[in-house]
C-alpha cells in the first residue's frame, strides 16, 4: 500500500486526484459527494460576480462509436451568489478538514476587486486559491478569464495583487490558447504564484449539424466558440505541462489538467512534472466513482514498481523531454513484423506504400497465403505501420545498432561551426526536420 498523499505548494491532499474547477464542483452537495467517493481535493467552481448562463451548454465529440472523445462547453463561472458559495465552502471544509479545498476566482482586472474577494474567501478557511485566467468564452469578452490569461503582463500584475492579500497558496490556472504557454507561466511566477495549473480548455467548435446547418451546440440558432477538453486534449496538455516543468524560469509546482481519465493518464502527468492532477470530463461522463479505480490502479502500479510514495513519480520523465535539436540523429529503429501475430489486414502495407516510405512488401507463401515483409534497409523508422496495426504484438519497432556515436543536430551544427565549414549541402537531405 503506497503513500498517495501529495503536497502541492503547501496544499496537502490524501491523494493526487482533484476535481477541476468546473460544473462538478458547483455546490457543496457535489463536492461533498466527491470527497465521499474518494477524491483527494477539489477546486471550487470559479467565484466572481454571478453570471447568467445560456441553456444548451455542452457538446461532445464521439469518435467511431466511443462517446466523449472530446468535450466542449460554453458554461460560465458560478451563477450563484457569493454568500451561498462561501457558506457551502465553509460547511464542506468543516466536514472534510483533510481534503484539499481550493477555490477558483475570477474578477475584473482591478486590484481592489482581487483584494476584496481573496479576503472574503480566505476568511472562511480554504486551503488555497486558483486564479482563473483561462476561461475562453463569455468572461473573456468582459476582460476576464482568457483575456487576462493571454497577456503576460496582466497575468503577472493580477497575480501580484492577489499575493498582496493572500495568506494561502496561490495557483495560477493557465490558458492554452496562446503560442507559448511558458510565457504566461513565467509571468505568473514573476507575480509570485506558488503553483500553476494547466491547461484550461481550448477554443473549439464541437461541430456543425449537417441537416440544420446549426452549430453544435447552438443557442436558439446561434453558436459561439466554447472550451474543448476531455481525452482528445491530453497530448496538448501533456506537452504544455512538460514545457513548463522543464523550464528553469517556471520552477513552481504544477497541477496537471487536460483529458485525464484514468490512473494511467495521471501517472503520465506526474512523470511529466505534475505534483497532482485535476479531472473534470471523465467525472462528468461517468460520475464521481471513477476515482476508485484511479486510486486503486495508481496504488497497484506503485506497489508493482516498488515505490513507496506517489511523490517518487513526480517529474521523473521531465529530463527525457527535450528539443528536437538535441535528439540523436544516429539512433535508428526499423519495423519488424511478427508473422505469428499478423492477421494480414495489409493496413501497414498501404500506410507505408501510400503515405510513408514504400518499404513493406506483400508476398505469398508456398501455400498461397499472403504475408508482409519489411524491407529494413529502406525503413526510416517512422512508426506509422506499428501505429495503424490493429493487433498487439504484430509489429515492433526494433533498435538497429548503427555503429555510430550519438550525434544531435545541435552537436552537428556546432561541430560544423568549429571546423568552419558551413556548407553541408551534400548530406543535409538525409535527416531533415519536417
Amino acid at each position: 500500500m503506497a503513500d498517495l498523499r501529495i503536497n502541492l505548494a503547501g496544499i496537502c491532499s490524501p491523494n493526487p486526484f482533484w476535481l477541476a474547477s468546473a460544473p462538478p464542483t458547483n455546490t457543496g452537495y457535489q463536492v461533498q459527494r466527491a470527497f465521499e467517493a474518494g477524491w483527494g481535493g477539489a477546486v471550487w467552481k470559479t467565484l466572481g460576480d454571478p453570471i447568467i448562463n445560456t441553456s444548451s451548454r455542452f457538446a461532445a465529440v464521439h469518435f467511431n462509436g466511443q462517446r466523449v472523445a472530446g468535450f466542449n462547453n460554453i458554461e460560465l463561472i458560478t451563477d450563484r451568489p457569493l454568500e451561498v458559495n462561501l457558506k457551502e465552502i465553509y460547511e464542506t471544509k468543516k466536514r472534510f478538514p483533510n481534503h484539499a479545498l481550493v477555490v477558483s476566482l475570477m474578477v475584473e482586472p482591478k486590484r481592489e476587486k482581487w483584494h476584496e474577494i481573496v479576503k472574503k474567501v480566505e476568511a472562511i478557511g480554504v486551503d488555497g486559491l486558483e486564479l482563473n485566467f483561462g476561461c475562453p468564452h463569455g468572461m473573456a469578452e468582459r476582460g476576464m478569464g482568457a483575456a487576462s490569461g493571454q497577456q503576460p503582463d496582466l497575468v503577472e500584475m493580477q497575480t501580484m495583487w492577489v499575493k498582496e492579500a493572500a495568506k494561502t497558496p496561490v495557483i495560477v490556472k493557465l490558458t492554452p490558447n496562446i503560442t507559448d504557454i511558458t510565457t504566461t507561466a513565467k509571468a505568473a511566477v514573476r507575480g509570485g504564484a506558488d503553483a500553476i495549473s494547466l491547461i484550461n480548455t481550448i477554443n473549439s467548435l464541437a461541430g456543425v449539424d449537417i441537416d440544420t446547418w446549426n452549430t453544435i451546440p447552438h443557442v436558439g440558432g446561434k453558436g459561439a466558440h466554447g472550451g474543448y477538453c476531455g481525452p482528445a486534449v491530453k497530448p496538448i496538455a501533456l506537452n504544455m505541462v512538460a514545457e513548463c516543468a522543464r523550464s528553469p524560469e517556471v520552477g513552481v509546482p504544477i497541477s496537471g489538467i487536460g483529458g485525464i481519465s484514468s490512473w494511467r493518464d495521471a501517472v503520465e502527468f506526474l512523470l511529466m512534472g505534475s505534483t497532482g492532477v485535476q479531472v473534470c470530463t471523465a467525472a462528468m461522463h461517468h460520475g464521481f466513482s471513477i476515482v476508485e479505480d484511479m486510486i486503486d490502479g495508481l496504488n497497484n502500479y506503485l506497489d508493482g514498481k516498488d515505490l513507496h510514495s506517489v511523490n517518487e513519480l513526480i517529474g521523473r520523465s521531465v529530463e527525457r523531454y527535450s528539443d528536437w535539436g538535441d535528439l540523436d540523429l544516429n539512433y535508428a529503429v526499423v519495423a519488424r513484423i511478427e508473422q505469428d501475430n499478423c492477421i494480414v489486414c495489409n493496413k501497414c502495407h498501404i500506410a507505408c506504400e501510400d503515405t510513408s516510405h514504400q518499404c513493406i512488401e506483400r508476398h505469398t507463401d508456398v501455400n498461397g497465403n499472403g504475408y508482409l515483409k519489411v524491407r529494413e534497409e529502406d525503413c526510416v523508422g517512422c512508426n506509422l505501420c506499428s501505429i495503424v496495426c490493429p493487433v498487439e504484438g504484430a509489429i515492433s519497432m526494433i533498435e538497429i545498432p548503427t555503429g555510430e556515436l550519438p550525434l544531435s543536430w545541435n552537436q552537428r551544427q556546432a561541430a560544423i561551426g568549429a571546423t568552419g565549414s558551413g556548407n553541408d549541402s551534400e548530406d543535409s537531405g538525409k535527416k531533415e526536420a519536417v
Partner: protein
Amino acid sequence: MGKSLNVNATFIPSESLRRNFAEVKAGMRPMEAIEESNRCLYCYDAPCIKACPTGINIPSFIKKIASGNMLGSARAIMDANPVGATCARVCPTEELCEGACVLNHSSKPIMIGDLQRYATDWAIKNEQMLFTAGHSNGMAVAVIGGGPAGLSAARELARFGFAVTIFEAREQAGGLDTYGIVSFRLPQSISLWEVEQVRKLGVDIRTGVRVGTDISTAELLEQYDAVVLAIGMSKVPMLGIDGEQLEGVYDAIDFVEVTKTEIKTDLVGKRTAVIGAGNTAVDAATCSVRLGASNVKMVYRRTNEEMTAYDFEFEFAKQDGVEFEWLTAPVRIIGDENGRVKGLECIKMRLEASEDGGRKLPVPVKGSNFTLAVEAVIKAIGQTRHLSLIEQLGIEHKRGIVTVDPDTYQTSNPHIYAAGDVIFGEGQGEAMVVSAAQQGKLTAYSIYNTLSAGRERYG
C-alpha cells in the same frame, strides 16, 4: 462440437479422450478483453450488480480491465465472490448479470462472464495473493464441508480474524467445484486455486476428515465458538426399479466425479441412457459423449418445457449430439447373463393437469412399454441428503433440508449455521454455486455480528 470430438473409433486410447475434457471455451484474448471492457457503459446503480447473487461490482471490475488495473479487477471480483473464478465459468450468466445488462435493449450484452474469467485467469497466472487475514480475534469457527459455501464462509471469517478450520471429507476441498462440474466447463485447477486462496489466509483445511465419523459433532460444538454446516448434498437416490445393481448402472454424481481425475475407457462404443433432465443429467450425458459412448439418450418423464437444466446446457447437449426421449419413464433395467446392462425398459407418459393447479403430472400410458437397447444407464434424478450427520447435530430439517433463519443462517441450534446446498429445497435458497458463495459470505457476517456483539456484552 460433436464433430470435433475424438469419439469415432471403436477403441480409443484414454489420452485422446482426455482431450475431450479440456476446457471447451477459450479465454478471451487481450484485444477482445480490451474492446469488450471499453464497451461497458459503467452504468450507475447497474442492474448487473443487482442480478449477481454475490453483488460483484461488475462495472468497476470491467473498468479496471479497461484501465489496465488487472490486480484491482481480480480483487474486486474475488472480494465479492470467493469462488469468482469458478463462477466466471459456471454461472448461468444469461439469467443473471448478462441477462440484466442494459445493452440487451440496444445492442448486445457485455460478456461479463468472459471478462470475469479474463481477470481471474490473470490473477491465477500471476500467482496473486488477493487478500490478507484479519488480526486474530481469539475466536474459532469450524466449517463442515469445503465446497463453495464453506470456502466462502471460511474466507470471510478469516478476514475478520477468526481461527477457521474446514473439515472436508474428501481428498481435496472445493466440493462440487472440484468434483462435480465437468472438466470441459471447469478444470479442477481453477477450483483448487480458490481453495489455495483460502488456505493462504491461514484457514486450516483438514481434508479426509469426515465429521461424525473421524471427529464427533459433540467435539466440534465444544471446541468451536460456532459451527458452519456446508455439507451440500449426497448421492443420487435409488430409482426404485429392478436392475439398479447391475454392472453399467452409474450414479451421475459419482460418474462426473471420476472424470475429474481419471478418464476411463469403459463407456467407449456403448449406448447410454441418462435418466433425468437437470443440469447434472446434461453433464452426465455430455461426459458420456466425450467418453466415447456411441449413442447417448436422455430419458425424462416430462418434456423439454419442464426440464430443469438451463437453456444453454440443453443447447450444449444438443450440440454434442445427445438425443432426447421425452415423456418417457424407466420401468426396469435389463441385464444379460453376466449381470451387465443390456437394455432399459421404459414406458411412455402423458402430462395431466394437477388437481391443485401446480406442475403437470406425468401419467403412464398403458401398454406403451418399449425397450431401449443400452449398455449403460446413468441416474441423474436429484440428490439425497447427508441425513445421518444432520441428525447427529440434532438440528431441525425437512427431509434433510436444514431449516435456517433466512436473515442469520442460524439453524435451530444457534451455534450451528448452515449455508449452500444443505439448505436448498422446499422453497429455500438456490442451487447455484454463486448462491452458495453468497450464503457462505452472509453466514460469516452473521457469525461476526453475533459473536463480536456477544463479546462486547460479556467482556
